[in-house]
């Protein structure tokens, strides 16, 4: 179950985003972490990214179903829509990602189809230090495409990061520089 029904005030720059700390209760967190550890992840390697992933949107599993509700039931979708000031959110998709040593996701803005809000629930149960890599980097870009790193969010266990998808939502996952497993459940709230 969720620990909260409220989302803190948005941070506006470089694009609207928010971090909800301590998102799941301890029991759900343990069950979810255990369920995700048992998945057979696929290795994905392209010009844009390098990580392990497992699609969860259509998985019928008691714990994953609870997690899907916690992230995407109507009450929470309405709260997300209200906080970001966007129209009704109809559904979510979700996948689990594991970033190990050398994994990365290069800058992109997430603009695909009807994605409105991006989210990432961080489930790495160790304290990640900046030098380990794996932070979420947020950029500003000028009209010519030159970027400036504005903010880095270091993944914190059981924190839910959300941001509004737009032509300004340039972000990346920094290369993981140590032998850790950066685990997230990530996806989008759709129109």
């Amino acid at each position: 179950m969720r620990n909260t029904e409220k989302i803190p005030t948005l941070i506006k720059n470089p694009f609207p985003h928010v971090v909800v700390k301590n998102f799941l209760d301890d029991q759900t967190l343990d069950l979810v972490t255990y369920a995700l550890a048992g998945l057979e992840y696929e290795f994905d390697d392209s010009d844009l990214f390098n990580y392990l992933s497992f699609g969860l949107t259509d998985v019928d599993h008691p714990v994953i179903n609870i997690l899907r509700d916690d992230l995407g039931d109507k009450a929470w979708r309405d709260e997300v829509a209200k906080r970001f000031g966007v129209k009704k959110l109809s559904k979510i998709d979700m996948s689990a990602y594991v970033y190990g040593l050398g994994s990365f996701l290069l800058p992109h803005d997430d603009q695909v189809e009807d994605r409105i809000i991006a989210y990432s629930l961080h489930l790495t149960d160790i304290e990640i230090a900046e030098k380990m890599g794996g932070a979420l980097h947020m950029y500003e870009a000028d009209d010519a495409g030159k970027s400036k790193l504005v903010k880095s969010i270091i993944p914190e266990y059981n924190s839910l990061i959300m941001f509004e998808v737009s032509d300004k939502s340039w972000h990346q996952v920094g290369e993981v520089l140590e032998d850790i497993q950066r685990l997230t459940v990530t996806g989008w709230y759709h129109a």
Partner: protein
Amino acid sequence: MPDIHFYYLAKETISNLKMIFNSSDVPFLRLSKFLDIESVDYKPNLVDDENIGYFRRKKGPAILEDFWKSTEFIDFLCNVTDLNPKFSSANHLSYSAGDYSLLHMEESAPKRLAVVYDFTKKWRLEWGGNDLYFSPGKEHLICNRDYGSLMIVKLEKGDLSCTRYVSLKSKDSARIDFVTYDLD
């Protein structure tokens, strides 16, 4: 101007290269130790070149620009590919730690011959920075860094290429002359 290694100018070699190039799924040749470049100036003036979501690197004039435009080299290309390439552009590109280019930066590129000459020294495989060639429905072509190698690839409209992300652990830069020739 540098000289093409005499081995690559032998009649038998050219005949073999032509056969290899035209029998590949994605027509390509990888020629090691292609040139004698001991006397070349390796310090071009480079400037930051970024378009977020497409590429981040340094860029400058090709080190061997005159050579890539020369009759000698274009004749060589004609002989080993059976194509009629016309010089289009040449740049020196340098990819340091954190730099990258992505395939979709070439989405609007026409049919072309891409030529990449590798100036990268002391490279480690785990630093990434390899060249990737993508042709829909075919196997990816991956070209790891190899000092002194020349890569020649025929790319159709819709085919894409890039230099992959360079690890933050990299202690050097991947440096290439990247040259394109238009094809009829």
